[in-house]
Every structure is written in structure tokens, then in C-alpha cells.
């Protein structure tokens, strides 16, 4: 895969789509893109994903996260047909399976309940 397709460390969103890559062999999705598939080593192609999905797990953290006053909520969000992203959650801790919408602020993934 071309180096240009590999983002720096941050996840990026363009036109409401999460930028990344998908494996041409096993369909594993990554964001930011990887050069090869972490699941099977296969070739990746540039792909973008919906910015909505469901909560896999979430926790309320009572340590300063990114210098923020605690508590913070962190959640894994499984994008629909896309990768799992770790996000800073806006609002009360969601439950597994709750619908979520993600966006990126200053290179950091945020999420909230999908309205």
C-alpha cells in the first residue's frame, strides 16, 4: 500500500466519513490505515467508514485523562461495518450496544449518543 494512504497518529474524518483502510482478503478494517492487514497480513485498500456505530464497552475514569478534570468517560465504539475506535465520550457512561456517533477534535476521537 502507498505511504500517502497512511495517516499520522490521529484518526481523521472527512465529509462525515472516518478515513482508513480495509483488507482485500479478510475485510479487517483499520483507522488510521495500516500498510498491511493486522489480521492476516493481506493487502489493504483505502476505505472510509460511517461515523456511526454501537458501543462495545465504556468506563467512567476517575484519573485525569488528557489533562481533563475527572471524571471522563472512555468508550470503544464499533463503527457500522468499520473498525473499533476508542473515543472520549460526551455525557453519561453509555451501555454496551448503545448507538453512537463519532467525530474528531484536535486529532482525538470523541463520541456521543447518536441522535
Amino acid at each position, binding site marked *: 500500500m502507498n505511504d500517502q494512504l497512511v495517516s499520522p497518529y490521529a484518526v481523521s474524518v472527512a465529509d462525515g466519513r472516518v478515513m482508513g483502510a480495509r483488507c482485500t482478503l479478510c475485510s479487517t478494517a483499520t483507522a488510521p490505515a495500516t500498510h498491511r492487514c493486522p489480521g492476516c497480513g493481506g493487502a489493504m485498500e483505502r476505505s472510509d467508514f460511517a461515523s456511526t456505530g454501537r458501543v*462495545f464497552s465504556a468506563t467512567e*475514569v476517575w*484519573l485525569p*485523562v488528557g489533562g481533563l478534570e475527572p471524571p471522563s468517560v472512555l468508550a470503544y465504539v464499533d463503527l457500522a461495518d468499520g473498525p473499533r475506535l476508542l473515543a472520549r465520550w460526551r455525557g453519561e457512561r453509555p451501555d454496551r450496544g448503545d448507538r453512537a456517533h463519532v467525530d474528531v477534535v484536535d486529532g*482525538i476521537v470523541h463520541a456521543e449518543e447518536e441522535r
Partner: protein
Amino acid sequence: MRAAISGVGMAPFGRHTDVRLEDLAWRAIEPALMTAGVEPEHVDAVFVGTVFGRVGVASRVARAAGLTGAPALAVEAACASGTVAVQMAKDAVESGRARCAVAIGLEQMTNVVSSAIPPEPTDVEGRAGLVMPAMYALSARWYLDHHRVDPVDMARVAVKNLSNAADNPRSLQRPARSLDEVVQSRMIADPLTVLQCCPVSDGAAAVVVTPERGESDEVVITAAAVAGGRAWPGEVAEPWGPACVRRARDLVEKDLGSRLDTADVVEVHDAFTIGELLTIEAMGLAPDGIAPALLRDGEFGRDGRLPVNPSGGLIGRGHPLGATGVAQTVETWLQLRGAAGDVQIAGAQRGVVETMGGGASGLDGNVAAILVLDRT
């Protein structure tokens, strides 16, 4: 030819902020060489498991201990660094490249970390602020919800391990705690309270690995495996970790020719309470979702069916990252030699050490490492 652990040593875990790393290491290396009856000049391979060690740390430690001439290499595999160092010493001896190898686990972290380790900014999840307790809390929230387990039953891991540590002078000196105290202690990352998290500490441990001599009462490394991480999420809907441990288990059970539940004593990676439960299940020592019930019934206590972390584990002993895997090995060696003191499991013949290194996002682990030790 099998590799044997012929000597062990451990510096007391705790706060050693102002001690030179070379001096902390020597407090483990010296007794290890002495119990093995080995002089530094006989050592021809040195592996130092460390995470925060600075450039050249292995060479400086080797120089101060007189272990010069042999390659002294630093090994970093997150929390499993020390365990991997032991395996590399075993491989060096079994292959004939070394007649005597020393594995050292070493970490001084109280001078760089005050509570949780700062997340790594070049890691995509680290950027978002995913500290280790939160990473394990996300696993715990999933596990408790999926298996409908009461958080109180997870907290029993800490009660058991702190109680074991209170009887083990090699562990951090902290009091045993009641279930109420563990559950009511300060929340760190829901559902993990502070007493369910391993404490930051400094420490060193060392083992000397030599060819088996064929005598009685030796401790041999019968089998060993390190599995690397694969994509997470993977095929099974589950937290990060178990799939990587299962791969290490498959490798080591093949090497061993029998299951890990043939062990008499087990030391596993309980950096957080949930870690012990997930690991016990991934190692095939309990069915999925059942470890908390077996724990509640006392099966993993010192007088239970299969004692898990009789040393106190990481929660009880403290978790100086690179030192942990070697300390787990030392504790298991002491068990098999009948020298574990008040935490001795009577008649232990086989011990298993498991350590999980994690933190790189999008993987089911950095590495999982398992060692099987037998008394001859």
C-alpha cells in the same frame, strides 16, 4: 537437553527511587549467582527485561555485576518483558549458544510515574488518554455485562491476592483487606477500585539458567511459549487479551504434551482484578464466565484445587513492569523447591507462569508469555 533454573534472587519490591539501577539489580543478581554456585565469569548470555530502562541499561547492569564479555541485551515486551527474558535465557542454553545465561527483570518507575503510566502519544488510543486502568476497566465492563457477573465477585481477586501478599515477605508490605474495603476503596476506572489495581513500585529479580544436571530437586523449564499480538477485534467478540493468551497456551501445551491444568500452582498476570479472571479462563483453568464463581468457592485460594497467585500476584507484590515476569518465575521456583515460606503450597511439583504484555492499540496483546516449570 533441558534448561534448568539453578539459582534465583529478588530485591524487595517497593520504593527505591534514589538507588542506582545497577545496585538494585545486584540485590537480585548476587543471590541468584550464589544459589546457582556460579561466578560472573561463567555467564555467557545476559537478558534484561525492562520497559523504562534507558539506552544501554543492560550493559551498565552487566558491567556492575561483572557479567562482561557476554552480550547483555535489553528485552522489551511491555509487562511480559521479564518473562520473555527468561525464555530467551532458556533458548540460549538449550541451543548450546550459552552454558550459563542470566535473566534479569528490572524496573525503576517510582521516579517517572506517580499513578497510572502516562499513555503513549504515538499510539492512537494513547492519544485519546487510554491509561492502563481504563483499558482493563473497559474489559471488565464488557465481561461483567456479558457473563452477568457481580462486580463484587471480581473484587474477590484482590482480597485473595492481598491476603496472600500479607503472608509473603517478598511482596510489598501492605495489609490484607476485606471484600468491603476493596469494593469501597476509591474508584479509578469503573468498575475497578484502587485496591483492584497493581501498585506502582520498583524492583529487580534474577534467575540463572544452566543445562539440567540430571539430579533430583532441580527445577527445569519443561515448556515455554511467547505468542505475539494479532488484530483486535478478532473473530470472537471479547475484550483484548484472551485470544493472545489462548495462542500462547496452545503453543505451550503442544510443547508440554499435556494441559496447563496439570499445574499444582500458577502465577498469572493480575495487573488488575479482571486480568486474573480473563487469564484463568483463557488458560483453560476455568470455563468462560465461570472463574468468578470458582474463586468465590475458594478453588484458587492457597488451600484450593488450584492455587492462583499464592505470592500475592501483581496486585499484592507490586508491578515493576520488567521485573514482574522474573519475580513470578522466582516465586514459582521457590514453590517447587519447598522454599516459599508461609505461602508454600505443599508438595508442588509443577508450576506455571503467565504474563500478558499489552497497550498497543488494535491488537489482542503485545505478547502473552507462558512458562511451565517442573521439579525433577
